[in-house]
């Protein structure tokens, strides 16, 4: 479980996050949603410690990340996996070497055990016959799946995904969503996903935080969204006519 309490963050006097608090549950896909520029990525990067917050607290299973020393922070980070928007695979390494990298860096497993773990993770994300290819030789969807494999190779307790479906076609997006959800449930990890993809919200939104202009606007789950009367949420979700129709159909039922 990850808990954030009263988080504030600003860049050069421009306030980006204002008083955000939320509990992200273990074994659930927790979503942070909002328009582009609403502060989603800053919030996610603040939670993982890539941005230093101005005020507030971040607790990983009651361990205070904000007041931790460098050494403890480093060891906690080995319990995290992150999938970046563009995949962030290392260009100089092959697919297999990318997934193996955290193992080489932090585990004391034998070479055979490492290979087994790499094969298991690549199989888990349905990557076959691409082990020796470089990131530039694979598609966007495959890059995301390799990034997921790399993120889970050390059996993390916390998984973070920044816009995992950006730039992907709807079908591949569904595959990625299903994959993240199944990994979350099977490994019982705390997953936080940043997205503005409404399909993802409706498919895997167990616990949703909606932020607008850096402020926490609404929280709930995918079922609550359709019945919410929050004006800003309504404008965000039902900007798409398809979802307006779904809402109207639900209302008429």
């Amino acid at each position: 479980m990850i808990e954030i309490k009263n988080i504030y963050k600003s860049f050069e006097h421009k306030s980006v996050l204002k008083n955000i608090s939320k509990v992200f549950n273990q074994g659930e896909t927790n979503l942070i949603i909002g328009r582009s520029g609403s502060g989603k990525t800053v919030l996610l990067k603040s939670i993982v410690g890539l941005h230093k917050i101005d005020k507030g607290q971040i607790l990983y299973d009651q361990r205070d990340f904000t007041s931790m020393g460098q050494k403890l922070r480093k060891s906690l980070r080995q319990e995290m996996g992150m999938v970046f928007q563009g995949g962030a695979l290392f260009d100089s390494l092959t697919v297999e070497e990318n997934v193996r990298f955290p193992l080489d860096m932090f585990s004391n497993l034998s070479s055979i055990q490492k290979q087994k773990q790499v094969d298991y993770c690549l199989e888990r994300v349905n990557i076959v016959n691409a082990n020796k290819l470089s990131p530039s030789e694979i598609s966007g969807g495959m890059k995301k799946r390799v990034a997921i494999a790399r993120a889970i190779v050390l059996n993390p307790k916390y998984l973070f995904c920044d816009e995992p479906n950006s730039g992907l076609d709807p079908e591949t997006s569904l595959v990625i969503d299903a994959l993240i959800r199944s990994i979350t449930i099977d490994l019982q990890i705390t997953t936080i996903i940043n997205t503005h993809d409404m399909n993802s919200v409706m498919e895997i939104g167990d616990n949703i935080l909606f932020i607008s202009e850096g402020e926490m606007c609404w929280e709930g789950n995918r079922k609550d969204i359709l019945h919410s009367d929050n004006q800003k949420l309504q404008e965000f979700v039902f900007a798409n006519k398809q979802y307006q129709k779904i809402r109207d159909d639900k209302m008429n039922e």
Partner: protein
Amino acid sequence: MDILNQTGRYFALLLKVFSKPERHSLYMRQTFNEIENLGIQSVGIVAIISIFMGGIMTLQVAYNMTSPLLPKTLIGLGNRDSLILEFSSTIMGLIMAGKIGSNITSEIGSMKVTEQIDSLEIMGVNSASYLILPKIVAVVLMFPLLYILSVFFGIVGGLIVGPAVGAVNITDYINGIQYEFNPYYVTFSLIKCLVFGFLIASVSAFFGYTVEGGAFDVGSASTRAVVNTNILILVWDLILTQLIL
């Protein structure tokens, strides 16, 4: 103020770079890769430039020696000392700042803007140390070797061009390069090479590591890295020449 700020950030980055590595074996592997990428792959360009410059310097010394009282051996001596003292260390340093320096800045800068560095940090890896330390070690180790190669190829260049165009005969040239040889000149230049190697790798890495934005910004950072490294090389050349020659 901006220079002070940049200098402070540069030293803060160096502090991060020279912290204890997470896994020595991976750092070693990375260092050998960098020796290959930054050092071995520069041998060709160093050889080509040095052969031509050795030849050109031999011709220029010969054409400026109009007095019949001056012995022809001075042509070889002039070429040798120019190569040992300035060309193969300083001028080669400036050229390497362009080749190796821009390579380092663009590689690290691209990793920064595509979030690969963030990805390392999330894993708990000291990204500055993992990416920059092997490059510094590789360039500092390889630059003195490239210097020695450059002196050798420069002398060979003079030996080929000088006699070929009739500016000097082989015997006079060889006598010249052996005349009054002062080994301290080589020691002095090797010290310069260590300093220049460190500057090329660390300054270029700093500009790459601190880049913000996209491809355009990576390009600008590469240009700034090369310009700043060149200025620093010249400043340190002056300081070291005054202090230890």
